[in-house]
């Protein structure tokens, strides 16, 4: 999968931090798009080659704003998020944040 992603990324002229295989259970978060994950609303933002900001909320109270580097794990509202990869580029549609991240979610 990593090979495919890397080849795809190179073909699209974008950069990615995916040197290790992205786990099958990793969740992709498009930058700036609120996404339902483990009963929470998670938004990846300000994505860099090796880091991102995760905004995690339950929909009713102020969200937790968490800086996380690739390989690092952060926790919010009882759920842990490990950032396993980021991708810059890959979506050439105009006026859209052109980035994504992959996180592994642990609800323990």
């Amino acid at each position, binding site marked *: 999968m990593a090979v495919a992603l890397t080849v795809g990324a190179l073909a699209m002229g974008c950069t990615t931090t995916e040197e290790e295989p992205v786990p099958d259970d990793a969740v992709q978060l498009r930058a700036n798009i609120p996404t339902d994950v483990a009963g929470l609303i998670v938004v990846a933002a*300000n994505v860099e080659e090796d880091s991102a900001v995760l905004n995690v909320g339950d*929909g*009713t*109270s*102020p969200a937790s704003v968490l*800086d996380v580097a690739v390989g690092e794990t952060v926790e919010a509202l009882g759920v842990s998020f490990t950032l396993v990869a980021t991708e*810059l580029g890959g979506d050439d549609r105009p006026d859209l*944040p052109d980035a994504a991240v992959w996180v592994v979610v642990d609800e323990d």
Partner: protein
Amino acid sequence: MTTLGTRARVHETSDRGAGSVEYLGVVIVVVLVVAGVIAAARVSDVGTTLAERVTCAVRSIGTQAGDCGGEDVPTYYGGDAPAAGDEDPAPPVAGTDEDAAPGPDRGEAPAAPTADAGGTGGGPDFANASDTRPAADQERVDEALDDVRDALDGGFWGVRAGDLDDARDAIAQLNGREIDALVAEMSDDELERWVDQMEDGWVFGGWSREERRELWEILAGNASKETLDRLAAFTGELQPSFSTIGGDDARDKKDSPANAGVYGEVPHDLVVQGVDPDDIAQGSIGNCWWMASLGAVAHADPSVIEGAITSNANGSYTVRLYDDGVPVYVTVTPEMVLVDGKPSLARSPQYLLSDNQTTGYELWPMVMEKALALHYGDYEKTEGGTADVGLEILTGVPSTNHAPGDLSIEDLAGIIQGGGAVGLSSMAQGQGKDLPTYGQQAGADRLIRGHAYYVSAVDTQKGTVTVVNPWGTAMYPPITMTIEDFDASFRQVRVNEVHP
């Protein structure tokens, strides 16, 4: 007086006369052969695709429609576009209270879809349908059905645009229950053929997207859920598609709306305690520009949005948008894109609804989002944009764009206090890394790159501007910053006077 030159031309014309007759004969033979081949192909399933492609291509030459069932840019639905300066025309809503007749008791089983004279007709309704649609007159239904079937017969030359006009006119004179009864009496094959002829008709036939939208508006604003569900099986133009939200690879993500979404109706009221900018919360779609525009206008003047939505007796909503300053009416059903039973795109908090028993959703942000998707063609087409465009679509008033710093804090305060709306574009991806407003030190007030915001307050005494993230104020409270930080942190300030 005939000159030499003129005579020469007459002579040449005369010489060519015999050749022209021969040429005309050849053309007639070729046309007859082509028509015969196409007609033969149309009666066989095998040749249908080829025939449709050929006829569509020929028709598009004749009509200059330029489409073979493809997507056009929508301009105006529901009638001729009003001239500039005309009064806002009334939206094409369903029957009013004055001509309303009692509908079926909501506790009873729905009436049979075929209507007896004076009966109610229709099938299952949307939850908020008021059931005030007039009763059906079977005689009117039968006459209209004859007209529709005549129009769709077409004869040797097939169904032309004029025939489709006749079918639409027959539908337009019916009330909602009569439309239900008429559609119920048509077979699936008839309905499919009707849609096919609209989208990809015979020579010089077919309709543009605008023309098709006029018919869909009549149906969506009047017919029952059962009727609309049946028609939606044959066209993607009644319910905007969400299957490409997120781009090409969205279907690979099992929980994405594109993959897991279904249309469904949730308990709802259109508005709970008035339209309020805090009702806005962006969902799993890249339309921050639209949600910020909704928030900005709701903040500037909630009545603009309240006045833009009309509730129809069949439970649908007709939304007034603007296209280049011209009103455009788009009717949407109350069904929204759900994942695991919850709204997945625009969201709203849950409230105790007006029946004081049910907990449900405030639907207006979802209605406005769906109306834009239907106007643009589908949800994916609404991904990516800027708030100046969104503000124009909502108000019909041109927006102006300004570089930060071009507007003083007094200018900004004057716009907001004067009832104007201000949208913002934050720094693009890769920009603003060194700005404190985008850094970790900003904490929960950190700005998001590549995002849209709107201005909610300006304090000239304190020298501050307050901006709002359309992800929802419950999770992302407004951020107040100095005017200096404001000027440094945004790429564009997008101003709309709302009421110039």
